[in-house]
């Protein structure tokens, strides 16, 4: 069975000594079995297409005076449609717009002072964030100090770059607090890595950017920043069909991350815009029937 071996790209493998004591699985770079197909390129293209429409979500993060604020919605819609490569065997059509869950955890806790957000393929994000958490812990043990946010995001970006073109779908933000202060990086499955102060990722991101950019200031207090993040997610869930459920807000400060709130966006709508029955509407209704 063919295996792709990426150990050459991974610089953080420790020197091999006492290898019998440690489990080979942990130290070896992840390698995945490739399927036995006649047309591997065609299979790859179809696999990439299968995951492409799935970035239905809204996540955002921004740096401010007191650290990093991270927020996300919680809806998962089923991505995927007729996969041409498998048409010969069986035709399966997945409803692209089924809201499979309203309670997906999209903010992943890598370690007590670093958070990652999930957009794109859920399995891809969960696996690679956990893998990143393992690498960060190994770095801590090998170097007796915590890894920086820049370093952690670089590790993830290098791994994703090595799988470029193979159909991973990951659009994540790594947010944390290290010795040089708050850190926020955007990393995606095309291999891109950007340092920045404000990011939003997912199909609802244009709507979130609108609210975030107009309300942002570096000197916000923690409560105001949390309310800005919550409102930006709420507005994105209102306009975007693929976002919804619960708006979770986390704050990463010098002491690590803390979950601030998880509010149902359905109820948030009616607290921002309460229903007021107006007498004008009543009169107009009477006229219409007559």
């Amino acid at each position: 069975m063919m295996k792709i071996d990426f150990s050459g790209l991974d610089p953080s493998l420790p020197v091999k000594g006492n290898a019998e004591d440690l489990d080979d699985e942990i130290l070896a770079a992840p390698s995945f079995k490739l399927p036995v197909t006649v047309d591997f390129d065609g299979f790859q293209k179809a696999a990439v297409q299968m995951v492409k429409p799935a970035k239905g979500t809204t996540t955002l993060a921004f740096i401010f005076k007191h650290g990093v604020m991270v927020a996300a919605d919680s809806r998962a819609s089923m991505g995927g449609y007729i996969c041409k490569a498998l048409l010969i065997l069986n035709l399966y059509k997945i409803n692209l717009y089924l809201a499979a869950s309203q309670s997906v955890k999209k903010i992943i806790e890598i370690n007590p002072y670093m958070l990652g957000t999930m957009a794109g393929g859920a399995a891809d994000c969960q696996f690679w964030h956990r893998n990143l958490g393992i690498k960060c812990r190994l770095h801590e043990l090998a170097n007796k100090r915590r890894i920086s946010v820049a370093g952690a995001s670089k590790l993830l970006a290098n791994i994703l770059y090595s799988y470029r073109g193979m159909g991973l779908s990951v659009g994540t933000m790594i947010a944390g607090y290290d010795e040089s202060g708050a850190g926020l990086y955007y990393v995606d499955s095309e291999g891109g890595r950007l340092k920045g102060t404000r990011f939003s990722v997912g199909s609802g991101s244009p709507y979130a950017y609108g609210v975030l950019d107009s309300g942002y200031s570096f000197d916000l207090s923690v409560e105001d920043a949390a309310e800005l993040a919550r409102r930006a997610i709420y507005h994105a869930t209102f306009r975007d069909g693929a976002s919804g459920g619960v708006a979770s807000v986390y704050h990463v400060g010098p002491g690590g991350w803390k979950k601030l709130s998880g509010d149902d966006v359905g109820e948030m709508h009616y607290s921002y815009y309460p229903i007021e029955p107006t007498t004008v509407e009543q009169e107009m209704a009477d006229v219409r029937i007559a």
Partner: protein
Amino acid sequence: MRRKALAFDHFLHLNVGKCSNFGSGVIFEYNGSALVAMVGKNCFAIASDRRLGVQLQTIATDFQKIYRIHHTLFIGLAGLATDTQTLYQRLVFRHKLYHLREERDMKPETFASLVSAVLYEKRFGPYFCQPVIAGLGDDDKPFICTMDSIGAKELAKDFVVAGTASESLYGACESMFKPDMEAEELFETISQALISSVDRDCLSGWGGHVYLVTPTEVTERILKGRMD
């Protein structure tokens, strides 16, 4: 097998925009909709969601999908919004002419045949709509039916559904429906079925619109739903 295989499931040869490798149903998922009609004891209820979207983006949350033909006949139209508006205008025109000639309103069974004929006229370039017709016929007996986009009628005695949320709606109605419900209980049932189904569909929801029709009155209600 309760539901007949409807024609649009097999429209694999239709090229709609760039979606030729998506299969047939994508044009029906462009705007998003959810429609349901239910029969009660000498009354009926017809309900829809209120969203108008362009794929995932929501444009309006007060879009009308149920139209009144006459005081006891309603038609709900699911599918591509531009086609539903044009089709409604065509049907209202035909009914007004009928009313002038016959000096009476159309019976629901006749109207259903009219809709079916109008849709089949466009057999090889159809309106991308799925209508749900509900009315009170002779002796105030409730009549409901749905059809596919080229006019295949499906009559039912209990409930009919249409739209992008139709699969969830089938499940919800099948479990919540009871025969011979009174008006208020029918309203509760149809509202719960609609709201719980659209909460599972990304393309429909953002409120609900219910018409409850008895021989003596028509009640129109707006439902408070999740706005995400």
